[in-house]
Protein backbone atom coordinates (compact mmCIF):
# COMPACT_ATOMS: atom_id res chain seq x y z
CA UNK A 1 0.00 0.00 0.00
CA UNK A 2 2.65 2.50 0.84
CA UNK A 3 4.30 2.00 -2.43
CA UNK A 4 7.13 4.45 -3.15
CA UNK A 5 6.08 4.47 -6.81
CA UNK A 6 2.63 5.58 -5.75
CA UNK A 7 4.14 8.37 -3.74
CA UNK A 8 6.18 9.55 -6.68
CA UNK A 9 3.18 9.49 -8.96
CA UNK A 10 1.32 11.52 -6.44
CA UNK A 11 4.04 14.12 -6.22
CA UNK A 12 4.11 14.51 -9.97
CA UNK A 13 0.40 15.10 -10.18
CA UNK A 14 0.04 18.85 -9.85
CA UNK A 15 -3.64 18.74 -9.09
CA UNK A 16 -3.09 16.29 -6.28
CA UNK A 17 -0.33 18.35 -4.76
CA UNK A 18 -2.48 21.46 -4.94
CA UNK A 19 -5.29 19.58 -3.24
CA UNK A 20 -2.99 18.35 -0.54
CA UNK A 21 -1.72 21.88 -0.03
CA UNK A 22 -5.28 23.22 0.27
CA UNK A 23 -6.11 20.58 2.85
CA UNK A 24 -2.98 21.38 4.78
CA UNK A 25 -3.72 25.09 4.81
CA UNK A 26 -7.24 24.30 5.95
CA UNK A 27 -6.04 22.10 8.77
CA UNK A 28 -3.60 24.75 9.89
CA UNK A 29 -6.33 27.39 9.72
CA UNK A 30 -8.63 25.23 11.76
CA UNK A 31 -5.96 24.43 14.30
CA UNK A 32 -4.39 27.83 14.78
CA UNK A 33 -6.89 30.28 13.36
CA UNK A 34 -9.02 30.42 16.50
CA UNK A 35 -5.95 31.12 18.57
CA UNK A 36 -4.80 33.95 16.35
CA UNK A 37 -8.22 35.48 16.02
CA UNK A 38 -8.08 37.49 19.17
CA UNK A 39 -11.86 37.70 19.45
CA UNK A 40 -14.32 35.29 20.95
CA UNK A 41 -16.51 34.05 18.10
CA UNK A 42 -19.63 34.20 20.23
CA UNK A 43 -19.25 37.56 21.89
CA UNK A 44 -20.89 40.55 20.24
CA UNK A 45 -18.87 43.71 19.99
CA UNK A 46 -21.62 46.08 21.00
CA UNK A 47 -19.33 49.06 21.31
CA UNK A 48 -17.23 48.90 18.18
CA UNK A 49 -19.24 46.74 15.86
CA UNK A 50 -20.72 49.51 13.80
CA UNK A 51 -19.06 52.10 11.63
CA UNK A 52 -19.84 55.77 11.41
CA UNK A 53 -23.04 55.46 9.42
CA UNK A 54 -24.42 52.75 11.65
CA UNK A 55 -23.78 49.92 9.23
CA UNK A 56 -22.06 46.70 10.20
CA UNK A 57 -18.32 47.13 10.41
CA UNK A 58 -16.45 45.78 7.42
CA UNK A 59 -12.85 44.54 7.20
CA UNK A 60 -10.80 46.83 9.37
CA UNK A 61 -8.02 46.84 11.91
CA UNK A 62 -10.42 46.07 14.70
CA UNK A 63 -12.03 43.13 12.95
CA UNK A 64 -10.07 41.41 10.21
CA UNK A 65 -13.07 40.40 8.17
CA UNK A 66 -15.60 42.66 9.76
CA UNK A 67 -18.49 41.60 11.94
CA UNK A 68 -21.51 39.44 11.37
CA UNK A 69 -25.14 40.57 11.80
CA UNK A 70 -24.85 40.01 15.54
CA UNK A 71 -21.69 42.10 15.74
CA UNK A 72 -19.42 39.11 16.28
CA UNK A 73 -15.98 38.84 14.66
CA UNK A 74 -16.28 37.11 11.27
CA UNK A 75 -12.72 35.88 11.02
CA UNK A 76 -12.92 34.18 14.35
CA UNK A 77 -16.20 32.56 13.43
CA UNK A 78 -14.77 31.38 10.15
CA UNK A 79 -11.85 29.78 11.95
CA UNK A 80 -14.02 28.07 14.52
CA UNK A 81 -16.31 26.94 11.78
CA UNK A 82 -13.34 25.36 10.07
CA UNK A 83 -12.63 23.39 13.21
CA UNK A 84 -16.12 22.09 13.43
CA UNK A 85 -16.41 21.26 9.75
CA UNK A 86 -13.18 19.31 9.79
CA UNK A 87 -13.89 17.53 13.05
CA UNK A 88 -17.35 16.49 12.00
CA UNK A 89 -16.18 15.50 8.53
CA UNK A 90 -13.20 13.47 9.73
CA UNK A 91 -14.96 11.57 12.45
CA UNK A 92 -18.17 10.99 10.56
CA UNK A 93 -16.10 9.70 7.66
CA UNK A 94 -14.18 7.43 9.98
CA UNK A 95 -17.39 6.02 11.35
CA UNK A 96 -18.84 5.59 7.91
CA UNK A 97 -15.68 3.93 6.58
CA UNK A 98 -15.34 1.59 9.52
CA UNK A 99 -18.91 0.39 9.36
CA UNK A 100 -18.96 0.29 5.60
CA UNK A 101 -15.72 -1.62 5.39
CA UNK A 102 -16.74 -4.09 8.07
CA UNK A 103 -20.03 -4.80 6.39
CA UNK A 104 -18.44 -4.89 2.95
CA UNK A 105 -15.68 -7.25 4.00
CA UNK A 106 -18.00 -9.59 5.83
CA UNK A 107 -20.48 -9.54 3.04
CA UNK A 108 -17.94 -9.99 0.29
CA UNK A 109 -16.16 -12.78 2.06
CA UNK A 110 -19.38 -14.60 2.80
CA UNK A 111 -20.68 -14.31 -0.71
CA UNK A 112 -21.36 -17.56 -2.44
CA UNK A 113 -20.11 -19.60 0.53
CA UNK A 114 -21.99 -21.49 3.20
CA UNK A 115 -22.47 -18.22 5.02
CA UNK A 116 -24.09 -16.62 1.97
CA UNK A 117 -27.11 -15.84 4.10
CA UNK A 118 -25.07 -13.22 5.89
CA UNK A 119 -24.20 -11.62 2.59
CA UNK A 120 -27.80 -11.56 1.51
CA UNK A 121 -28.96 -10.14 4.80
CA UNK A 122 -26.38 -7.38 4.88
CA UNK A 123 -26.99 -6.42 1.29
CA UNK A 124 -30.73 -6.25 1.92
CA UNK A 125 -30.03 -3.83 4.73
CA UNK A 126 -27.89 -1.79 2.37
CA UNK A 127 -30.71 -1.76 -0.15
CA UNK A 128 -33.17 -0.47 2.39
CA UNK A 129 -30.66 2.06 3.59
CA UNK A 130 -30.05 3.35 0.10
CA UNK A 131 -33.76 3.67 -0.53
CA UNK A 132 -34.10 6.12 2.28
CA UNK A 133 -34.24 9.78 1.41
CA UNK A 134 -30.94 10.58 3.00
CA UNK A 135 -31.32 14.19 3.96
CA UNK A 136 -34.85 13.62 5.16
CA UNK A 137 -33.62 10.87 7.40
CA UNK A 138 -30.88 13.00 8.86
CA UNK A 139 -33.27 15.85 9.50
CA UNK A 140 -35.94 13.63 10.96
CA UNK A 141 -33.53 11.98 13.34
CA UNK A 142 -32.03 15.30 14.27
CA UNK A 143 -35.48 16.67 14.93
CA UNK A 144 -36.43 13.59 16.91
CA UNK A 145 -33.40 13.69 19.09
CA UNK A 146 -34.03 17.37 19.64
CA UNK A 147 -30.74 18.16 21.21
CA UNK A 148 -28.13 18.42 18.49
CA UNK A 149 -24.52 18.27 19.50
CA UNK A 150 -21.39 17.61 17.50
CA UNK A 151 -21.66 14.02 18.61
CA UNK A 152 -25.21 13.48 17.39
CA UNK A 153 -24.49 15.08 14.03
CA UNK A 154 -21.39 13.02 13.70
CA UNK A 155 -23.20 9.81 14.46
CA UNK A 156 -26.17 10.58 12.28
CA UNK A 157 -24.01 11.51 9.30
CA UNK A 158 -21.68 8.60 9.81
CA UNK A 159 -24.37 6.01 10.24
CA UNK A 160 -26.39 7.09 7.23
CA UNK A 161 -23.62 7.16 4.67
CA UNK A 162 -21.90 3.83 4.93
CA UNK A 163 -24.17 1.98 2.53
CA UNK A 164 -22.44 2.93 -0.67
CA UNK A 165 -19.04 2.17 0.82
CA UNK A 166 -20.23 -1.26 1.85
CA UNK A 167 -21.25 -2.09 -1.68
CA UNK A 168 -17.97 -0.99 -3.17
CA UNK A 169 -15.85 -2.78 -0.58
CA UNK A 170 -17.91 -5.90 -1.04
CA UNK A 171 -17.24 -5.89 -4.76
CA UNK A 172 -13.54 -5.38 -4.19
CA UNK A 173 -13.44 -8.08 -1.54
CA UNK A 174 -15.00 -10.56 -3.88
CA UNK A 175 -12.46 -9.63 -6.50
CA UNK A 176 -9.54 -10.04 -4.14
CA UNK A 177 -10.90 -13.23 -2.66
CA UNK A 178 -10.42 -15.09 -5.88
CA UNK A 179 -6.78 -14.20 -6.18
CA UNK A 180 -4.31 -17.04 -5.97
CA UNK A 181 -2.63 -16.14 -2.77
CA UNK A 182 -5.90 -16.00 -0.92
CA UNK A 183 -6.86 -19.41 -2.16
CA UNK A 184 -3.48 -20.64 -1.10
CA UNK A 185 -3.93 -19.06 2.28
CA UNK A 186 -7.17 -20.88 2.79
CA UNK A 187 -5.67 -24.11 1.68
CA UNK A 188 -3.00 -23.63 4.31
CA UNK A 189 -5.77 -23.49 6.85
CA UNK A 190 -5.46 -19.93 8.05
CA UNK A 191 -8.43 -18.54 9.94
CA UNK A 192 -10.97 -16.27 8.36
CA UNK A 193 -10.15 -13.29 10.53
CA UNK A 194 -6.46 -13.66 9.79
CA UNK A 195 -7.10 -13.71 6.08
CA UNK A 196 -9.46 -10.80 6.28
CA UNK A 197 -7.17 -8.63 8.30
CA UNK A 198 -3.79 -9.50 6.89
CA UNK A 199 -4.54 -10.18 3.26
CA UNK A 200 -7.80 -8.69 2.17
CA UNK A 201 -7.91 -5.50 4.17
CA UNK A 202 -4.59 -4.16 2.87
CA UNK A 203 -5.82 -4.76 -0.63
CA UNK A 204 -9.01 -2.84 -0.19
CA UNK A 205 -7.23 -0.12 1.71
CA UNK A 206 -6.49 1.73 -1.50
CA UNK A 207 -10.07 2.25 -2.61
CA UNK A 208 -10.97 2.84 1.01
CA UNK A 209 -8.64 5.80 1.27
CA UNK A 210 -9.97 7.26 -1.93
CA UNK A 211 -13.55 6.82 -0.70
CA UNK A 212 -12.56 8.42 2.56
CA UNK A 213 -11.24 11.50 0.88
CA UNK A 214 -14.34 11.96 -1.24
CA UNK A 215 -16.44 11.23 1.81
CA UNK A 216 -14.82 14.00 3.82
CA UNK A 217 -15.71 16.41 1.05
CA UNK A 218 -19.30 15.21 1.06
CA UNK A 219 -19.54 15.42 4.82
CA UNK A 220 -18.39 19.01 4.75
CA UNK A 221 -21.19 19.81 2.34
CA UNK A 222 -23.71 17.72 4.28
CA UNK A 223 -22.86 19.46 7.53
CA UNK A 224 -23.16 22.88 5.95
CA UNK A 225 -26.48 21.98 4.36
CA UNK A 226 -27.76 20.82 7.73
CA UNK A 227 -26.60 24.07 9.30
CA UNK A 228 -28.11 26.05 6.48
CA UNK A 229 -31.47 24.36 6.97
CA UNK A 230 -31.10 24.99 10.70
CA UNK A 231 -31.13 21.37 11.73
CA UNK A 232 -27.45 21.30 12.57
CA UNK A 233 -25.61 22.62 15.57
CA UNK A 234 -27.58 25.09 17.65
CA UNK A 235 -26.69 28.76 17.78
CA UNK A 236 -24.52 30.53 18.63
CA UNK A 237 -21.96 27.97 17.45
CA UNK A 238 -20.32 29.20 14.31
CA UNK A 239 -20.38 26.83 11.37
CA UNK A 240 -19.96 27.76 7.74
CA UNK A 241 -23.46 26.74 6.76
CA UNK A 242 -24.92 28.79 9.56
CA UNK A 243 -22.82 31.80 8.63
CA UNK A 244 -24.15 31.52 5.10
CA UNK A 245 -27.68 31.45 6.38
CA UNK A 246 -27.23 34.36 8.74
CA UNK A 247 -25.44 36.39 6.12
CA UNK A 248 -27.97 35.83 3.39
CA UNK A 249 -30.35 38.47 4.64
CA UNK A 250 -27.56 41.03 4.63
CA UNK A 251 -26.24 40.05 1.26
CA UNK A 252 -27.15 43.34 -0.35
CA UNK A 253 -25.17 45.42 2.11
CA UNK A 254 -22.35 43.05 3.00
CA UNK A 255 -21.77 40.33 0.41
CA UNK A 256 -18.65 39.24 2.28
CA UNK A 257 -20.95 37.62 4.84
CA UNK A 258 -22.03 35.12 2.22
CA UNK A 259 -18.89 34.97 0.12
CA UNK A 260 -16.48 34.21 2.95
CA UNK A 261 -18.11 31.01 4.21
CA UNK A 262 -19.14 30.05 0.69
CA UNK A 263 -15.62 30.24 -0.63
CA UNK A 264 -14.28 28.39 2.40
CA UNK A 265 -16.69 25.53 1.80
CA UNK A 266 -15.77 25.48 -1.84
CA UNK A 267 -12.03 25.44 -1.20
CA UNK A 268 -12.30 22.76 1.44
CA UNK A 269 -14.35 20.52 -0.79
CA UNK A 270 -12.11 21.22 -3.74
CA UNK A 271 -9.05 20.36 -1.72
CA UNK A 272 -10.38 17.03 -0.57
CA UNK A 273 -11.69 16.14 -3.98
CA UNK A 274 -8.32 16.87 -5.58
CA UNK A 275 -6.60 14.92 -2.88
CA UNK A 276 -8.91 12.00 -3.43
CA UNK A 277 -8.37 12.10 -7.14
CA UNK A 278 -4.66 12.28 -6.71
CA UNK A 279 -4.66 9.33 -4.36
CA UNK A 280 -6.76 7.31 -6.73
CA UNK A 281 -4.47 8.06 -9.63
CA UNK A 282 -1.40 7.36 -7.57
CA UNK A 283 -2.56 4.08 -6.10
CA UNK A 284 -4.37 2.68 -9.07
CA UNK A 285 -3.19 4.40 -12.20
CA UNK A 286 -4.76 4.11 -15.61
CA UNK A 287 -2.30 2.96 -18.18
CA UNK A 288 -1.83 6.07 -20.26
Amino acid at each position, binding site marked *: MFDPRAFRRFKQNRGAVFGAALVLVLVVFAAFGPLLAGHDPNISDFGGGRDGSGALLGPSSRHLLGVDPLLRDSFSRLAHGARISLLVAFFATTLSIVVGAAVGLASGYAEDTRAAGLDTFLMRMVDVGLSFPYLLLV*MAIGAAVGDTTILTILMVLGLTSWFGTARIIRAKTIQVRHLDFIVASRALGQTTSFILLRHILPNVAGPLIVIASASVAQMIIAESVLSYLQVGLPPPTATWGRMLLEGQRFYTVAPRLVLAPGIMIFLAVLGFNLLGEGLRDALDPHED
Partner: protein
Amino acid sequence: MLAYLGRRLLWSFFTIWAVVTATFFIYNVLPEDPARVIAGPQARPADVARIRTQLGLDRPVHIRYARYMTGLVSLKKPPADAKDDGAWKLGPVRIDLGVSYLKRKPVTTLLAKALPPTLLVGFLALAIEVAIGAAAGMLAAMKRHGFLDYGTVALTLVGISAPTFLTGLLLQHFLARELRLFPLDGYGQTSAEQLHSAMLPALTLGLYGAAYYTRLVRDEMITLLKEDYIRTARAKGQSEWLVVIRHALRNALMPLVTVVGLSMGSLVGGAIVTEKIFRWPGIGSLSVDAIVERDGPVIMGVVILFSSVVVAANFLVDLSYAVLDPRVRRR
Protein backbone atom coordinates in the same frame (compact mmCIF):
# COMPACT_ATOMS: atom_id res chain seq x y z
CA MET B 1 -34.97 -15.36 -15.31
CA LEU B 2 -38.60 -14.97 -14.47
CA ALA B 3 -37.95 -16.40 -11.06
CA TYR B 4 -35.12 -13.97 -10.57
CA LEU B 5 -37.26 -11.04 -11.54
CA GLY B 6 -40.08 -12.32 -9.41
CA ARG B 7 -37.80 -12.44 -6.41
CA ARG B 8 -36.53 -8.95 -7.12
CA LEU B 9 -40.09 -7.67 -7.33
CA LEU B 10 -41.03 -9.23 -4.04
CA TRP B 11 -37.95 -7.80 -2.47
CA SER B 12 -38.83 -4.37 -3.80
CA PHE B 13 -42.16 -4.39 -2.03
CA PHE B 14 -40.52 -5.53 1.16
CA THR B 15 -38.03 -2.70 0.97
CA ILE B 16 -40.77 -0.14 0.60
CA TRP B 17 -42.64 -1.63 3.54
CA ALA B 18 -39.51 -1.55 5.70
CA VAL B 19 -38.83 2.06 4.86
CA VAL B 20 -42.42 3.12 5.51
CA THR B 21 -42.57 1.34 8.84
CA ALA B 22 -39.27 2.73 10.00
CA THR B 23 -40.30 6.27 9.15
CA PHE B 24 -43.68 5.89 10.82
CA PHE B 25 -42.08 4.89 14.07
CA ILE B 26 -39.37 7.52 13.97
CA TYR B 27 -41.99 10.12 13.37
CA ASN B 28 -44.28 8.92 16.11
CA VAL B 29 -41.60 9.01 18.70
CA LEU B 30 -41.27 12.75 18.14
CA PRO B 31 -42.42 14.60 21.20
CA GLU B 32 -44.84 17.13 19.85
CA ASP B 33 -48.31 17.72 18.79
CA PRO B 34 -49.79 18.85 15.48
CA ALA B 35 -53.05 19.75 17.16
CA ARG B 36 -51.31 22.60 18.88
CA VAL B 37 -49.86 23.81 15.62
CA ILE B 38 -53.24 24.02 14.01
CA ALA B 39 -54.71 25.79 16.99
CA GLY B 40 -51.89 28.28 17.14
CA PRO B 41 -50.29 29.71 20.26
CA GLN B 42 -53.25 31.88 21.20
CA ALA B 43 -55.70 29.03 21.65
CA ARG B 44 -56.99 27.76 24.95
CA PRO B 45 -56.08 24.21 26.00
CA ALA B 46 -59.61 22.91 25.73
CA ASP B 47 -59.74 24.02 22.14
CA VAL B 48 -56.51 22.23 21.36
CA ALA B 49 -57.77 19.02 22.94
CA ARG B 50 -60.85 19.26 20.83
CA ILE B 51 -58.83 19.65 17.68
CA ARG B 52 -56.72 16.67 18.60
CA THR B 53 -59.76 14.46 18.96
CA GLN B 54 -61.17 15.76 15.73
CA LEU B 55 -58.04 14.72 13.86
CA GLY B 56 -57.67 11.35 15.58
CA LEU B 57 -54.34 12.02 17.23
CA ASP B 58 -55.19 10.62 20.63
CA ARG B 59 -54.85 6.86 20.12
CA PRO B 60 -51.80 4.81 21.09
CA VAL B 61 -49.05 4.29 18.56
CA HIS B 62 -49.65 0.70 17.50
CA ILE B 63 -53.30 1.32 16.83
CA ARG B 64 -52.42 4.33 14.74
CA TYR B 65 -49.93 2.21 12.82
CA ALA B 66 -52.45 -0.51 12.14
CA ARG B 67 -55.01 2.04 11.08
CA TYR B 68 -52.52 3.76 8.86
CA MET B 69 -51.34 0.64 7.11
CA THR B 70 -54.81 -0.72 6.51
CA GLY B 71 -55.99 2.62 5.25
CA LEU B 72 -52.98 2.95 3.03
CA VAL B 73 -53.67 0.27 0.51
CA SER B 74 -57.08 -1.28 0.46
CA LEU B 75 -59.38 -3.09 -1.82
CA LYS B 76 -62.49 -1.82 -0.12
CA LYS B 77 -64.85 0.29 -2.07
CA PRO B 78 -65.78 3.41 -0.18
CA PRO B 79 -69.48 4.03 0.47
CA ALA B 80 -71.15 5.59 -2.52
CA ASP B 81 -71.82 8.95 -0.89
CA ALA B 82 -68.37 9.36 0.63
CA LYS B 83 -66.57 12.52 -0.29
CA ASP B 84 -63.66 12.34 -2.61
CA ASP B 85 -60.67 12.17 -0.36
CA GLY B 86 -58.23 12.22 -3.19
CA ALA B 87 -57.13 8.62 -2.94
CA TRP B 88 -55.33 7.20 -5.93
CA LYS B 89 -57.00 4.35 -7.67
CA LEU B 90 -55.12 1.70 -9.56
CA GLY B 91 -57.89 -0.53 -10.75
CA PRO B 92 -59.49 -2.12 -7.68
CA VAL B 93 -56.75 -0.97 -5.35
CA ARG B 94 -57.11 2.28 -3.46
CA ILE B 95 -54.10 4.05 -2.11
CA ASP B 96 -55.01 6.53 0.53
CA LEU B 97 -52.27 8.57 2.06
CA GLY B 98 -54.42 10.45 4.50
CA VAL B 99 -54.93 14.15 4.96
CA SER B 100 -52.30 16.72 5.82
CA TYR B 101 -52.77 18.04 9.34
CA LEU B 102 -51.88 21.53 8.41
CA LYS B 103 -53.00 22.11 4.88
CA ARG B 104 -56.17 20.10 5.40
CA LYS B 105 -55.82 18.67 1.93
CA PRO B 106 -55.32 15.01 0.98
CA VAL B 107 -51.68 14.08 0.85
CA THR B 108 -52.12 12.59 -2.57
CA THR B 109 -53.36 15.93 -3.83
CA LEU B 110 -50.36 17.72 -2.34
CA LEU B 111 -47.96 15.21 -3.83
CA ALA B 112 -49.67 15.37 -7.18
CA LYS B 113 -49.37 19.12 -7.08
CA ALA B 114 -45.70 19.09 -6.10
CA LEU B 115 -44.71 16.43 -8.57
CA PRO B 116 -44.92 18.38 -11.85
CA PRO B 117 -42.56 21.16 -10.69
CA THR B 118 -40.12 18.60 -9.34
CA LEU B 119 -40.23 16.59 -12.53
CA LEU B 120 -39.87 19.69 -14.66
CA VAL B 121 -36.71 20.81 -12.92
CA GLY B 122 -35.51 17.25 -12.57
CA PHE B 123 -35.77 16.38 -16.21
CA LEU B 124 -34.44 19.69 -17.33
CA ALA B 125 -31.47 19.23 -15.02
CA LEU B 126 -31.03 15.70 -16.32
CA ALA B 127 -31.11 16.92 -19.89
CA ILE B 128 -28.48 19.53 -19.09
CA GLU B 129 -26.33 17.00 -17.29
CA VAL B 130 -26.51 14.38 -20.00
CA ALA B 131 -26.08 16.82 -22.84
CA ILE B 132 -23.11 18.56 -21.29
CA GLY B 133 -21.78 15.35 -19.83
CA ALA B 134 -21.84 13.44 -23.07
CA ALA B 135 -20.57 16.30 -25.21
CA ALA B 136 -17.85 17.54 -22.89
CA GLY B 137 -16.80 14.05 -21.88
CA MET B 138 -16.49 12.95 -25.46
CA LEU B 139 -14.56 16.00 -26.55
CA ALA B 140 -12.21 15.81 -23.61
CA ALA B 141 -11.51 12.15 -24.23
CA MET B 142 -10.86 12.71 -27.88
CA LYS B 143 -8.55 15.63 -27.33
CA ARG B 144 -6.61 14.04 -24.54
CA HIS B 145 -3.78 15.98 -22.98
CA GLY B 146 -4.87 19.04 -24.81
CA PHE B 147 -5.98 22.33 -23.33
CA LEU B 148 -9.60 21.30 -23.70
CA ASP B 149 -9.04 18.17 -21.72
CA TYR B 150 -7.26 19.85 -18.84
CA GLY B 151 -9.72 22.70 -18.86
CA THR B 152 -12.64 20.31 -18.73
CA VAL B 153 -11.16 18.32 -15.89
CA ALA B 154 -10.51 21.52 -13.97
CA LEU B 155 -14.04 22.75 -14.55
CA THR B 156 -15.55 19.47 -13.47
CA LEU B 157 -13.61 19.64 -10.26
CA VAL B 158 -14.96 23.07 -9.62
CA GLY B 159 -18.40 21.81 -10.51
CA ILE B 160 -18.47 18.99 -8.04
CA SER B 161 -16.84 21.00 -5.29
CA ALA B 162 -19.25 23.86 -5.23
CA PRO B 163 -22.18 23.13 -2.98
CA THR B 164 -25.56 23.59 -4.68
CA PHE B 165 -26.66 26.32 -2.38
CA LEU B 166 -23.66 28.41 -3.23
CA THR B 167 -24.06 27.85 -6.95
CA GLY B 168 -27.76 28.55 -6.64
CA LEU B 169 -27.22 31.84 -4.83
CA LEU B 170 -24.58 32.94 -7.27
CA LEU B 171 -26.62 32.06 -10.33
CA GLN B 172 -29.60 33.80 -8.83
CA HIS B 173 -27.57 36.89 -8.14
CA PHE B 174 -25.92 37.18 -11.50
CA LEU B 175 -28.45 35.82 -13.93
CA ALA B 176 -31.66 36.84 -12.27
CA ARG B 177 -30.89 39.92 -10.28
CA GLU B 178 -28.18 41.57 -12.30
CA LEU B 179 -28.90 40.53 -15.83
CA ARG B 180 -32.61 39.86 -15.43
CA LEU B 181 -32.41 36.92 -17.80
CA PHE B 182 -34.57 34.75 -15.62
CA PRO B 183 -37.17 35.32 -12.94
CA LEU B 184 -35.84 35.55 -9.44
CA ASP B 185 -37.89 32.71 -8.05
CA GLY B 186 -41.32 31.19 -8.02
CA TYR B 187 -43.17 28.88 -10.33
CA GLY B 188 -45.13 31.03 -12.75
CA GLN B 189 -48.54 30.48 -14.25
CA THR B 190 -48.38 29.66 -17.91
CA SER B 191 -46.32 26.79 -19.23
CA ALA B 192 -43.95 29.24 -20.84
CA GLU B 193 -43.39 31.05 -17.54
CA GLN B 194 -42.90 27.79 -15.75
CA LEU B 195 -40.29 26.66 -18.21
CA HIS B 196 -38.55 30.00 -17.90
CA SER B 197 -38.58 29.85 -14.11
CA ALA B 198 -37.32 26.29 -14.12
CA MET B 199 -34.12 27.20 -15.88
CA LEU B 200 -32.16 28.53 -12.93
CA PRO B 201 -32.92 25.70 -10.51
CA ALA B 202 -32.33 23.21 -13.30
CA LEU B 203 -29.03 24.88 -14.10
CA THR B 204 -28.00 24.81 -10.45
CA LEU B 205 -28.67 21.10 -10.14
CA GLY B 206 -27.53 20.40 -13.63
CA LEU B 207 -24.11 21.95 -13.34
CA TYR B 208 -23.24 19.74 -10.45
CA GLY B 209 -24.46 16.66 -12.26
CA ALA B 210 -22.86 17.75 -15.51
CA ALA B 211 -19.48 17.89 -13.85
CA TYR B 212 -20.01 14.44 -12.48
CA TYR B 213 -21.21 12.92 -15.73
CA THR B 214 -18.52 14.58 -17.79
CA ARG B 215 -15.89 12.74 -15.84
CA LEU B 216 -17.81 9.52 -16.08
CA VAL B 217 -18.19 9.73 -19.82
CA ARG B 218 -14.63 10.87 -20.25
CA ASP B 219 -13.27 7.97 -18.23
CA GLU B 220 -15.37 5.47 -20.10
CA MET B 221 -14.45 6.97 -23.45
CA ILE B 222 -10.75 6.95 -22.71
CA THR B 223 -10.85 3.28 -21.88
CA LEU B 224 -12.95 2.44 -24.86
CA LEU B 225 -10.95 4.45 -27.34
CA LYS B 226 -8.12 2.08 -26.76
CA GLU B 227 -10.11 -1.01 -27.53
CA ASP B 228 -9.13 -3.08 -30.47
CA TYR B 229 -12.21 -2.64 -32.49
CA ILE B 230 -11.82 1.09 -32.35
CA ARG B 231 -8.30 0.80 -33.64
CA THR B 232 -9.49 -1.48 -36.37
CA ALA B 233 -12.11 1.01 -37.40
CA ARG B 234 -9.51 3.73 -37.47
CA ALA B 235 -7.19 1.57 -39.47
CA LYS B 236 -9.98 1.01 -41.93
CA GLY B 237 -9.89 4.70 -42.55
CA GLN B 238 -13.21 5.71 -41.08
CA SER B 239 -13.34 9.29 -39.87
CA GLU B 240 -12.61 9.93 -36.21
CA TRP B 241 -16.12 11.14 -35.53
CA LEU B 242 -17.85 8.21 -37.06
CA VAL B 243 -15.66 5.88 -35.11
CA VAL B 244 -16.42 7.63 -31.91
CA ILE B 245 -20.11 7.97 -32.41
CA ARG B 246 -20.83 4.60 -33.80
CA HIS B 247 -18.79 2.42 -31.52
CA ALA B 248 -17.58 4.16 -28.43
CA LEU B 249 -20.53 6.29 -27.57
CA ARG B 250 -22.99 3.44 -27.48
CA ASN B 251 -20.86 1.57 -25.01
CA ALA B 252 -19.96 4.60 -22.99
CA LEU B 253 -23.57 5.49 -22.51
CA MET B 254 -24.43 2.24 -20.79
CA PRO B 255 -23.01 3.12 -17.40
CA LEU B 256 -24.38 6.61 -17.91
CA VAL B 257 -27.84 5.17 -18.21
CA THR B 258 -27.30 3.16 -15.08
CA VAL B 259 -26.23 6.17 -13.09
CA VAL B 260 -29.08 8.24 -14.50
CA GLY B 261 -31.53 5.56 -13.57
CA LEU B 262 -30.21 5.32 -10.08
CA SER B 263 -30.32 9.06 -9.55
CA MET B 264 -34.03 9.16 -10.28
CA GLY B 265 -34.54 8.90 -6.58
CA SER B 266 -32.72 12.08 -5.82
CA LEU B 267 -34.60 13.89 -8.55
CA VAL B 268 -37.83 13.12 -6.82
CA GLY B 269 -36.46 13.29 -3.32
CA GLY B 270 -35.96 16.86 -4.05
CA ALA B 271 -33.16 19.25 -4.30
CA ILE B 272 -34.19 20.67 -0.99
CA VAL B 273 -31.90 23.61 -0.72
CA THR B 274 -32.27 24.58 -4.37
CA GLU B 275 -36.02 24.55 -3.98
CA LYS B 276 -35.75 26.75 -0.96
CA ILE B 277 -33.57 29.30 -2.72
CA PHE B 278 -35.81 29.50 -5.77
CA ARG B 279 -39.10 29.15 -3.93
CA TRP B 280 -39.81 26.17 -6.11
CA PRO B 281 -42.96 24.31 -5.04
CA GLY B 282 -41.59 20.82 -5.51
CA ILE B 283 -41.37 17.74 -3.34
CA GLY B 284 -38.27 19.04 -1.59
CA SER B 285 -40.03 22.09 -0.19
CA LEU B 286 -43.00 19.99 0.71
CA SER B 287 -40.90 17.57 2.70
CA VAL B 288 -38.85 20.19 4.53
CA ASP B 289 -41.94 22.08 5.57
CA ALA B 290 -43.58 18.86 6.66
CA ILE B 291 -40.63 17.90 8.84
CA VAL B 292 -40.36 21.28 10.48
CA GLU B 293 -44.09 21.38 11.12
CA ARG B 294 -44.36 17.74 12.12
CA ASP B 295 -46.99 17.07 9.49
CA GLY B 296 -47.04 13.29 9.74
CA PRO B 297 -49.11 12.26 6.76
CA VAL B 298 -47.10 14.41 4.39
CA ILE B 299 -43.78 13.11 5.70
CA MET B 300 -45.00 9.56 5.27
CA GLY B 301 -46.30 10.32 1.81
CA VAL B 302 -43.00 11.78 0.66
CA VAL B 303 -41.01 8.90 2.09
CA ILE B 304 -43.25 6.35 0.44
CA LEU B 305 -43.01 8.16 -2.85
CA PHE B 306 -39.27 8.53 -2.64
CA SER B 307 -38.53 4.95 -1.71
CA SER B 308 -40.97 3.67 -4.31
CA VAL B 309 -39.20 5.63 -6.99
CA VAL B 310 -35.77 4.47 -5.87
CA VAL B 311 -36.87 0.88 -5.63
CA ALA B 312 -38.65 1.03 -8.95
CA ALA B 313 -35.62 2.59 -10.59
CA ASN B 314 -33.36 -0.08 -9.13
CA PHE B 315 -35.69 -2.73 -10.34
CA LEU B 316 -35.80 -1.31 -13.84
CA VAL B 317 -32.03 -1.09 -13.94
CA ASP B 318 -31.80 -4.72 -12.89
CA LEU B 319 -34.35 -5.55 -15.51
CA SER B 320 -32.38 -3.81 -18.20
CA TYR B 321 -29.25 -5.62 -17.13
CA ALA B 322 -31.10 -8.90 -17.28
CA VAL B 323 -32.26 -8.11 -20.75
CA LEU B 324 -28.99 -6.79 -22.05
CA ASP B 325 -26.46 -8.92 -20.26
CA PRO B 326 -26.80 -12.61 -21.00
CA ARG B 327 -24.74 -13.59 -18.01
CA VAL B 328 -27.40 -12.44 -15.65
CA ARG B 329 -30.14 -14.35 -17.36
CA ARG B 330 -28.71 -17.62 -16.38
CA ARG B 331 -29.33 -17.13 -12.68
